[in-house]
């Protein structure tokens, strides 16, 4: 089961470089997904606006990204979470 709380905890511990890399990876997974009809539009728009405003490293946006990916690509999200736990 995917836990957004656990994900947030892990993000807090990452360095800014690690966060930057993670945002890129998450965004790539999200934008490459063929299941975006399942993501609530308002979540998608909040991510889009955050990118335009340069706020992708805010914890709240990490949570939005994680939530969107957990819906669109649950197995990929679980894999990322496992990798983050290991690090």
């Amino acid at each position: 089961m995917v836990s957004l709380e656990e994900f947030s905890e892990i993000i807090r511990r990452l360095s800014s470089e690690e966060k930057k890399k993670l945002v890129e990876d998450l965004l790539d997974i999200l934008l490459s997904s063929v299941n975006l009809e399942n993501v609530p539009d308002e979540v998608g728009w909040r991510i889009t606006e955050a990118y335009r405003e340069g706020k992708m490293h805010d914890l709240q946006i990490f949570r939005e990204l994680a939530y969107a990916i957990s819906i669109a690509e649950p197995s990929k999200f679980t894999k990322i979470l496992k990798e983050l736990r290991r690090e």
Partner: protein
Amino acid sequence: MIIFSSEIVPKDPLWKIDLLAYLIEEMGLSGVWLSEHPHNRSSFITASLLLKRVSQLWIGVGVVNPYTINPFVIAQLTASLTEIAPNRVKIAIGAGDKTTLESIGVERSNPLEKVREAVTIVRRILRERRVTMDNVDGRLDFNPRSYAPIYIGAQGPRMLQLAGEIGDGVLVNYSNPEDLKWAYMQVKIGIDRSSRTMENFDAAAYLTLSIDNDIEKAAKTAAPYAAYVLCGLPEKMIEDLDIDDKFLNEVKETVKKADWLKLYSILPVEIIKKMVLVGRPSDLREVLEEVVEIGYRHIVLGAPLGPRILYSLKEICKITGELIKLHV
């Protein structure tokens, strides 16, 4: 000078299209073509959003077809878009693919005449606000804020020649240099017929791409796009590719049903690679150089781009940036 633009397919939610357009603008491409397909979101509606949300990119709508949208309405919609962003709108008109049109109950008859008539109507409305010809007598009660160059989406020899003869540009949807060279010569025949020169005409190579270091994944991502291209190919091309009717009909049925899992199992990688440029970033660079060598001065980087879209876009834009510097 060479220009590069990218295709966005409005099959995804508008927030994703908006973000992709923003990224494409950030990465320095000139414009975005929004492909039109009855199964997807309306390219005109999507264009009206993007024209407000980006400030530098031009937005091309197309290829729209005059069977599903009346040519006068195409002109009205295009003129309305010019009010949102004057001089940042392009329109492409084509005959559409027979399989899709049939699936929504539309007969695709006399494609050359239909496209010629549509281009004439759209051009007259955009330039003069009024058109009177045969059975059309229409006008706009508002001024288009600018002209919008009219491209023709073409694959067969006669449509390519027509594009050279009456279009402001052409979108040639082939992905290998051999076919693109042949197509360029066909367009040139039309250009010569119109007593114009290629310098005043925008010949755009519309490459369908799937770029990644993992070729297997790139091919899988490309499969549905390859199937659409295959279904729309002129008969002569199908014969040259040695594709039999039974197989083609099976692909058409699979596309109609959007049964992509079945498509992956029946469409061989060799066929996918003939329809779509599948390869690593270095392969793309080689092909782009060949396409420029042929004479194309506008290259459309067509969807799907790759299995990891952000990675592919970045790699593609690195290459296009270098080529732009080389050909200033």
